[in-house]
């Protein structure tokens, strides 16, 4: 198929960002199919007399690959399996959606389902059903979110400042990684200290090679792990240098040190690595999730992840990614719901991909919201980035849902960034890891990204990490250094995080910490959604935190900003009489003009607008008289009232916000000769032209109408809240039955 580019319409459409995205023809032979590949197996389960699985999903046990073999021997509840496998797909799907069916009943039944069976069930759900099922099936009641904090230079000071910022915005997990592997230990320390400055209890991981990551966990340098990758085919699994057994041991190794761990998978990974065996992404992911449960992981990060744009390139791919997440929840595991790697150049598509999860609420809406700028994200840009923090906060507010983020005060963020930078500077100096210049520190505090920190020295994190490794430094030493250098609260917070390992409560499914180190998990905070009126609702305090974005303005704010530009240019000289001069045009202004409102939406003082109108009339040999119309706020009526007072029968109506029209005394109130409706874009020259045309009308001519200024910007979104406030003020100044007053306007 070729693109038709022969008309302007297609040139316009081709130029849109969405057309940079790769869109694939579904091709099951290479795994480029979301659901239902012809080679996906028929669900089946045969259990032998000894309770062992002899056939699963149409494959006999002698032919089991490593994934089959591990799931078959560890992942299935064979007692419930006969019932689970025999229940029709749509019946199970209905149980997932039906609020009257307890979550626990679904979890118990799903435990007996093979990967192919669960894939079939979830493939039947529509997007709206997936959303409802997620609302009910996620493990933890309270939703949360995870941030990426990285930068191009592994700059410890910027990492600390950005970790503090992420924690201030409400993220309860922070994931860092390195462009330079040898920097890992330094990054882990800097991010942990920075996060502790802003909020106790934020979990921190550093995504690197499996064994290195485990070692950092053992030394307390990170408080959880996530980059434990699972794949749906044996070939890709082994290419990833692991097997289900090595991963199972790895899971136990983390738990043995009291460190939270989840695994990573995601549809499209096998196609991307050229070994999908002709299976659909959905089926292969069903194998990954079954395996995650089988090895005893408490949770899964999935939903495309690194292959999100592969999944998104095929029909139904975005729905498939959401079904992956629900699959995790149905297996009674923590779900970190992707929305991680940027899956489109289009703001519309990437928003569309995330919205259902934000609405449903999940354990972590993003398995990596890029809390830093796109260019600093060493995982690659996320679907959501620092550039989008305000968008996300407003989306939470729009829908009244908790996406895990909050609005910190900008001044608090600066103070936290400074303290984070100071704490890392002190710790690194105390431990002999590095000395930072004051200039570097200042740049890191103020930076929007690493390009703003030219003072950063790339050798510093390398040297610091080497010293950490060679001296066997642990997080206990960091705690001591914080205390010795006067960062007592941070020392306490980081020690509390280490002590939490001893209790082990945060090893349970979906665990996060509150700022008071209470564990919220499937055990302590189980999802209790059972239909409308139940389940998680933000507390009034949390709702206020969601609603109070920093951009919000009140009528009082607007009144104050108008009052700051008050002028005494307007003086009432008495009731306005009808004029008799055929060259006289009357300009009627709105009730609040010169009383409470002085400036139009385009920023012009009202008296300047009146000057322009008068000057335009003068060009045509006409005169202007100004009256204030107090009995109405309707612009048509203001203009008509003015026209009826004018000797020429032509009036101009002007609201203080700048909307203006030309009226004639014999027209109906809502008719008019010319109208400037979009006040924010009307400038002085336009008002001058309106004066000229009003003069021409006064002389009985038919002038060429002035072309209204237009814009493709969301002008109403920008000004309508202000307009509501302005109109309320006008309304309060309006006196029904009052007669128009003549105004003297001085400059």
């Amino acid at each position, binding site marked *: 198929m070729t693109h038709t580019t022969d008309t302007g319409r297609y040139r316009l459409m081709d130029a849109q960002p969405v057309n940079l995205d790769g869109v694939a023809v579904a091709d099951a032979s290479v795994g480029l199919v979301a659901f239902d590949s012809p080679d996906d197996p028929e669900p089946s389960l045969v259990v032998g007399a000894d309770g062992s699985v002899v056939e699963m999903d149409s494959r006999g046990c002698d032919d089991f690959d490593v994934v089959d073999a591990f799931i078959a021997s560890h992942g299935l509840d064979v007692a419930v399996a006969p019932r689970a496998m025999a229940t029709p797909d749509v019946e199970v799907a209905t149980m997932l959606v039906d609020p009257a069916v307890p979550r626990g009943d679904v979890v118990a039944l799903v435990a007996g389902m093979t990967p192919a069976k669960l894939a079939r069930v979830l493939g039947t759900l529509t997007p709206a059903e997936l959303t409802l099922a997620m609302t009910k099936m996620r493990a933890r009641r309270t939703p949360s979110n995870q941030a990426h904090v990285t930068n191009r230079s592994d700059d410890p000071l910027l990492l600390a400042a950005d970790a503090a910022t992420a924690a201030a915005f409400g993220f309860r997990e922070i994931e860092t990684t390195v462009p330079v592997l040898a920097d890992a230990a330094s990054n882990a320390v800097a991010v942990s200290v920075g996060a502790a400055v802003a909020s106790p209890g934020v979990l921190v991981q550093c995504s690197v090679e499996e064994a290195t990551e485990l070692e950092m966990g053992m030394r307390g340098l990170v408080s959880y792990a996530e980059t434990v990758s699972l794949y749906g085919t044996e070939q890709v699994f082994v290419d990833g240098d692991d097997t289900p*057994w090595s991963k199972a041991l790895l899971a*136990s190794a983390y738990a043995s*040190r009291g460190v939270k761990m989840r695994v990573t998978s995601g549809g499209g990974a096998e196609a991307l690595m050229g070994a999908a065996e002709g299976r659909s992404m959905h089926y292969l992911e069903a194998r990954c999730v079954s395996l995650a449960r089988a090895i005893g992981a408490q949770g899964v990060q999935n939903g495309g992840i690194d292959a999100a744009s592969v999944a998104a390139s095929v029909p139904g791919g975005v729905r498939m990614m959401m079904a992956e997440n629900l699959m995790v929840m149905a297996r009674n595991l923590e779900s970190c719901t992707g929305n991680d790697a940027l899956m489109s150049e289009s703001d519309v598509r990437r928003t569309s991909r995330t919205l259902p999860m934000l609405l449903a609420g999940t354990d972590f809406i993003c398995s990596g919201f890029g809390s830093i700028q796109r260019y600093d994200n060493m995982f690659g840009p996320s679907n959501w980035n620092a550039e989008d923090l305000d968008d996300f906060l407003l989306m939470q507010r729009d829908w009244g849902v908790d996406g895990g983020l909050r609005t910190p005060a900008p001044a608090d963020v600066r103070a936290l960034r400074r303290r984070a930078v100071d704490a890392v500077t002190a710790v690194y100096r105390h431990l002999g890891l590095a000395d930072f210049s004051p200039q570097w520190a200042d740049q890191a505090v103020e930076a929007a990204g690493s390009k703003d920190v030219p003072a950063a020295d790339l050798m510093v994190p390398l040297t610091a990490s080497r010293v950490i490794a060679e001296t066997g430094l642990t997080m206990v030493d960091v705690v001591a250094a914080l205390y010795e250098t006067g960062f007592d609260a941070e020392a306490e917070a980081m020690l509390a995080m280490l002590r939490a390992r001893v209790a*082990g409560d945060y090893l349970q499914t979906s665990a996060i910490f509150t700022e008071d180190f209470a564990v919220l998990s499937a055990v302590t905070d189980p999802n209790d959604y059972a239909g409308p009126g139940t389940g998680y609702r933000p507390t009034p305090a949390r709702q206020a935190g969601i609603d109070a974005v920093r951009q919000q303005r009140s009528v009082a704010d607007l009144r104050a900003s108008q009052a700051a530009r008050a002028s005494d240019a307007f003086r009432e000289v008495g009731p306005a009489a009808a004029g008799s001069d055929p060259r006289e045009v009357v300009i009627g202004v709105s009730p609040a003009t010169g009383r409470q409102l002085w400036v139009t939406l385009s920023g012009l003082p009202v008296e300047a607008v009146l000057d322009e109108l008068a000057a335009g009339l003068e060009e045509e040999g006409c005169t202007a008289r100004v009256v204030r119309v107090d009995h109405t706020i309707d612009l048509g009526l203001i203009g008509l009232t003015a026209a009826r007072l004018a000797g020429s029968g032509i009036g101009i109506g002007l609201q203080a916000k700048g909307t203006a029209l030309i009226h004639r005394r014999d027209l109906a109130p809502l008719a008019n000769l010319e109208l400037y409706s979009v006040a924010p874009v009307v400038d002085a020259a336009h008002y001058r032209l309106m004066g000229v045309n009003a003069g021409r009308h006064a002389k009985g001519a038919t002038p060429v109408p002035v072309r209204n200024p237009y814009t493709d910007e969301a002008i109403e979104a920008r000004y309508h809240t202000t307009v509501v406030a302005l109109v309320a003020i006008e309304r309060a100044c309006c006196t029904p039955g009052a007669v128009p007053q003549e105004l003297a306007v001085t400059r």
Partner: protein
Amino acid sequence: MSSPAASGRDPSTVTVDAVRAGGVTMDDLRIHPDTLAHQADVAEAHANPQLAENFRRAAELATLDDADVLAAYEALRPHRSSAADLEQLAASLAERGAPRCAALVAEAALVYARRGLLRP
């Protein structure tokens, strides 16, 4: 007293002052096998027997040195170990009071042999 650490120390005595005095090591901040066994019971009661099994394996590993745990993980990665290596690892784990981990290794040895994942 809250659950003791692997070292036997009461974590409530692991204060910042104690850290500053130099008397705290990571062993004082390591989870005790009994605590993992308790967490296994909790997981079991919350409908996840596989998570429980993981915690029971973890309880066995909790008494091993970091290096031994890392070595066991490494040995299970593909093409790292011969059948004899895995047999030996399983025996050694069983000997050190880690029967569940030993069983995991023994099971791996069988599947690796069938799927060609042993060290040639």
